[in-house]
């Protein structure tokens, strides 16, 4: 009799614990209250496991176009440990080949998180002033989704996080010799075979960090990207950093970084850094809490 009562009590307990879940508003119900057709807008890529075992059609020729998800990487597209092929993890194979000047400049960068997380009062990541990410940081940090379109003379590249765009010229022009620096530099690209597109970029502003752990660059930086269309749904992105003022030799920042094609219905969310919103956040939270976005913590 006691056993049956205990069983009944536990069953009732389980039922009581489960009932809030059954009654709880689910995300679609709440979304209906605040937004129309939520699944059509502000999309996020599916979890990595969704892709497992899925077969893909063959790669189209000379075609990078589509919306690509960077979050299937080991770092989930976030990459707060630094350039994914050279994270700041102390391993000998990930030792960055700094020149003396490069090492000096590296010591001056004070990140807010990750392996080189700094004291609150010292953090100086320019992203907290709503500076643009710049290139190549937009590919080495918070690579969430990107959208690529092609015209006869250009590859148009749109980046979700901090809302940057780049134009890669495919009209055969040469890179500029002594350009006025731009946040995203100047890019030209060409197909080296039907499935591999190689891009060269120069003229990037020195104020930007290469990645989230604060690797520096100079005006001598030249970045090479290799986009390899593996099959219809998969692309691999490799990137070489070549900056003789900062580094004694070129190094690989991305090594076949996986990009996964999304549906052409995918609506990229918007993440822009607005100084007014950043200011509001700082006055309500940042300054009062001593958080790194606060200008008081420069």
């Amino acid at each position: 009799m006691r056993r049956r009562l205990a069983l009944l009590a536990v069953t009732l307990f389980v039922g009581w614990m489960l009932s809030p879940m059954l009654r709880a508003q689910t995300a679609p119900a709440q979304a209906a209250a605040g937004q129309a057709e939520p699944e059509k807008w502000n999309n996020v890529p599916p979890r990595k496991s969704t892709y497992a075992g899925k077969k893909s059609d063959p790669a189209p020729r000379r075609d990078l176009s589509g919306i690509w998800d960077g979050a299937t990487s080991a770092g989930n597209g976030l990459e707060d440990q630094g350039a994914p092929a050279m994270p700041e993890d102390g391993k000998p194979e990930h030792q960055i080949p700094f020149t003396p000047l490069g090492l000096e400049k590296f010591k001056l960068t004070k990140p807010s998180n990750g392996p080189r997380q700094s004291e609150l009062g010292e953090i100086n990541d320019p992203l907290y002033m709503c500076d643009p990410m710049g290139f190549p940081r937009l590919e080495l940090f918070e690579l969430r989704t990107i959208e690529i379109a092609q015209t006869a003379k250009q590859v148009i590249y749109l980046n979700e996080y901090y809302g940057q765009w780049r134009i890669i010229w495919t009209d055969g022009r040469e890179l500029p010799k002594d350009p006025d620096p731009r946040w995203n530099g100047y890019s030209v690209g060409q197909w080296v075979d039907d499935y591999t597109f190689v891009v060269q970029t120069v003229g990037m502003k020195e104020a930007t960090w290469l990645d989230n752990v604060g690797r520096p660059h100079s005006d001598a930086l030249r970045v090479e990207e290799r986009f390899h269309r593996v099959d219809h749904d998969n692309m691999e992105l490799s990137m070489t950093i070549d900056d003789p003022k900062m580094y004694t030799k070129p190094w690989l920042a991305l090594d076949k970084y996986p990009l996964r094609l999304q549906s052409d219905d995918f609506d990229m969310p918007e993440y822009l850094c607005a100084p007014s919103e950043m200011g509001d956040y700082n006055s309500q939270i940042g300054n009062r809490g001593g958080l790194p976005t606060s200008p008081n913590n420069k």
Partner: protein
Amino acid sequence: MRNKLAIISLALVILPGVCVPLFAHHGNAAYDTTKTVTLKGTVTEYTWANPHVFLKVDAKDDSGNTSHWVIEAQSTVTQNAAGWSRTTFKAGDEVTLDVIPIKNGSPIGRFKGRIVINGTVFKAGAQPAPGQ
């Protein structure tokens, strides 16, 4: 038998929480991640913006004293992915929240997980990608 049922019922409670990826968060050093504070009070303002979505709550303690709390979530992109929107909260909502408090003692915190709005448990849910 009783132990097995207890374990199963506990698992059933914990597991259904949708796994939203744990984004590395700037400002970790400012929060006391060893503590959890449970706030009960009324929403006074809800801000749907970047860099962080945040909520202002007038929370009463056991003695009836009110403190004005500000609790931050992540970006609108991240919160949207977790099923939040600009109407998830509104002024006047009665809420119970678990928060991780800031170290410096100000009434500032970060959402820890449990959210109850007007008596209903809020379950974060990831919206499906198109074509799924």
